[in-house]
Structure formats: C-alpha cells, structure tokens
C-alpha cells in the first residue's frame, strides 16, 4: 500500500461520510454536540455593538492559502457568510478586513451573494464595508491600528491565517474595554492570543465556527465527519505505536 493510496482512501472516505451525513442531517438536525460560550459572547457583543451604534470588525486573515495551514484561509471564507446577516447590512457598521487581494475579492463576492436578494445597492453599499488597510502583515497592522483608533469598534472577530502581529490589534481594542474574539489556527497566533484574548478558539476548533454561529446541515455534517476521522486517526496512531513497540514497524 502506497501513501498515495492511503491519501485517496482518506479523502474518499471523508467525501462519502460528508455526503451521507449532509443528506441525513438535512432531514433532521441532530448533531448539536458543541457548545462554546465564547461564540455566544461574540453574538451578544455584535448585537450590543449594533445597539450602541458602534462598528463591528471581522478580520479574515492574511492569506487564502499557505503550505503550513492550507485550510485556514478557506475556513475563513467559509465562515464569512455567517457574519453577513441582515442587521449587519442595515447600518453599514460592519467592516471586513484582510491584507490579501484574493481574500478581498472572495469577501466581495460573498457580500454581493448574501445581500443581493434583500437590499438595494443605492440604499446601502455593502462593498464599502470591505477594507484592506495594508498588503503585508506588518503594514496591515499599522493600518488596522489606525482604523481601530479612528472609529469606535464594539466587537472584533479574527479568524483565518495570521500570526503574532494580531496581538497589537487585540490589545488596542481590549484596552478600550471592547470585545475581542479570535479563532487562532496557526501555532504562533495561538501562543500570543492565549495571553490576551479570553474568548479564543484554538486549532481545529476554528473550523467549527460557521456552524456555531449559524447551525446548518452542511456544518453539522462536517463536524460529524471530522469527529469520525479524528477517532480513526487516534486509533491508527495507537495501533502504530503498539506495532512499533512490538518491533513490527
């Protein structure tokens, strides 16, 4: 058995499980096993910011794709529609930040897709809510710090692929007593944000975010598939360790 074949089996199994669970859960949503109080606080903070007339920031990362974290950028793009609700469009108070052109284009596409059915473009230009303060992580940091100072932000949610520089923005907002939520996927962002952000999702938890904000069959099918794969992986690691100790590997 080659590694290529193992890869095919893993991907094929995941695809089959995903489709089966999607169709099963579409009929009857039944996989509500995850509860993160941090996500509930994020929802509350966004409503509170809206009521106080303050802005809500959503940062979707610096890169759509990277070799170390290939799924993080796509995970951020996948989570973005959950933030594009009717309330966000009603007061033009939501801003989506990124430092990469391709992420900006995808965010624009999502904004257009989400709002085209219900809102007149002349009444509310949702595209003005997209922002690219800089094109590299550090130039973005400079632009973002200035943005957070010049506008009253009541809530900031970070997810996607970013690094240690996020500490500078989160501290800027936390010092003002406002709410910061982070989904830290990369090791560097996890290590620094653990120090300063109370409401934090770490590692693979970041991929559960869309389903936690907006429960849908697709998200729950993803959770269930991931859980089964995780169990299989644990089992394989344990079997591998036993075989290695026995000298069979």
């Amino acid at each position: 058995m080659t590694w290529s074949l193992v890869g095919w089996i893993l991907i094929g199994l995941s695809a089959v499980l995903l489709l089966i669970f999607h169709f099963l859960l579409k009929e009857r949503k039944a996989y509500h096993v995850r509860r993160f109080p941090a996500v509930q606080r994020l929802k509350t903070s966004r409503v509170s910011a809206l009521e106080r007339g303050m802005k809500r920031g959503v940062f979707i990362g610096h890169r759509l794709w990277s070799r170390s974290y290939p799924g993080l950028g796509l995970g951020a793009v996948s989570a973005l529609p959950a933030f594009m609700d009717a309330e966000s469009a009603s007061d033009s108070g939501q801003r989506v930040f990124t430092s990469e052109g391709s992420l900006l284009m995808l965010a624009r596409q999502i904004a257009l897709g989400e709002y085209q059915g219900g809102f007149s473009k002349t009444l509310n230009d949702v595209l003005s809510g997209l922002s690219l303060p800089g094109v590299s992580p550090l130039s973005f940091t400079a632009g973002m710090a200035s943005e957070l100072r010049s506008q009253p932000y009541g809530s900031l949610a970070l997810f996607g692929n970013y690094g240690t520089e996020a500490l500078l923005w989160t501290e800027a907002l936390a010092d003002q007593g406002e709410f910061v939520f982070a989904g830290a996927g990369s090791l560097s962002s996890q290590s620094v944000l653990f120090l300063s952000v109370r409401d934090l999702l770490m590692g693979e938890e970041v991929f559960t975010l869309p389903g936690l904000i907006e429960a849908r069959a697709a998200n729950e099918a993803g959770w269930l598939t991931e859980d089964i794969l995780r169990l299989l992986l644990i089992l394989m690691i344990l079997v591998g360790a036993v075989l290695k100790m026995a000298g069979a590997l």
Partner: protein
Amino acid sequence: MKKIVWIVIAVVTGLIVLAGYFFQAQLGPVLSMILDWGILLAGAAGLIGVAYLFRMHLLKIIQNKKGAFYSGVVLAAFLFALIAGFILTPQNSFYRHLILNVQIPVEASLLAILAVMLLYAGLRLIQTRGWTPMSGAFLVSAILSLIIDLGFVQTRSGTLGAELIALLDRLPIAGARGILLGMALGGMVVGLRVLLTVDRPYGE
C-alpha cells in the same frame, strides 16, 4: 443558471487539482497549466488589492477625513516606490537599498513593540484568564521552556536528568504535531465541503 456555470467550473477545477496530486504522470501537464492560471489570477487579485488600498487612501484625502495627512504620506511613498521601481527596476542596488533601509527599520520597530506587548500580555495572563488548569499549564510550560532554553540546567548525558530535559524539549513538538494534525483534518473537511458543494460560501 449563471451561478451554476461558475460552480461547475470551480468544482471541476478543484477535482482536477486534487486528482493531479495522485495521478501526477497523467495529469501533470494539466495540473501545471491550472496552477499557472491560479498564480496569474492571484497576481491579478494582488493588483486589485493594491488598487483598493490606493483608492481607500485617495478617498480619505478627497473627503478630508481624520488621518488624511497620513494617507497623503502613504500615497506619496507608494507612488515614489512605484515610479522609482519602474525607472530603476527592483534589481538596481540603489533602489533596493533605498527601499529596504526604510522598510526594515520600520518593520523592526513594529516587532520591537510586539515584543514589549508580548511581555506585558504575559504578565497579565492570570488577570486575563484567571487561575484555570490551562492558564496554569501555560505558565508552567513557558517558565520551564525559558529555563531550559537559557541553558541554566546542565546535566551529563545518559543520566535521568538529561533524559527528562530531552523529554521536556520534545513535548512542544508533540503538541505542535497534534495541533497540526487537527488542522489538517479540519482543512481537508472544509475543502471537501466546498468541493462537493455541500457548503457554498459564495451564495445559495
């Protein structure tokens, strides 16, 4: 209807790229062509991003918003770097020195601020998170790593102490591997969700 066409194109392209990793001999030329297109599109998106940034600062100046002066500085620096780059080319050593001697000190100063903030946030860890098993474990492992990496603890090889230090050195690698495995699983499932159109972030 128009949307379905784009979805089909995206899904077929994604499936070809996925298959290309496993059937490199058969799909190699197609894969490299698609990747070339991808790089081209990413480059074009990068240009759009720069244009968006330019427009944002220009609007700030025109509307005389707060911070318009800084936007002026950004645009002046951007235009100077762009025009000088076209005239001298990025290979020119004078141009490289000119740009790097501004960029590196500025970025280094931002990193210095980050280091101070990190120390400050580290000191406030318990205030932020309270005494929880996670915060306690974080604190203990940070202090242990600091002590071991500074080389204060010296042991002879082959002793129990040396083994213990080697184990503590390996622990972060094991933890990182665990996190990366979880990330890989999550990434794969997200990718498949989009590829199988179970999840359609671009619209229903």
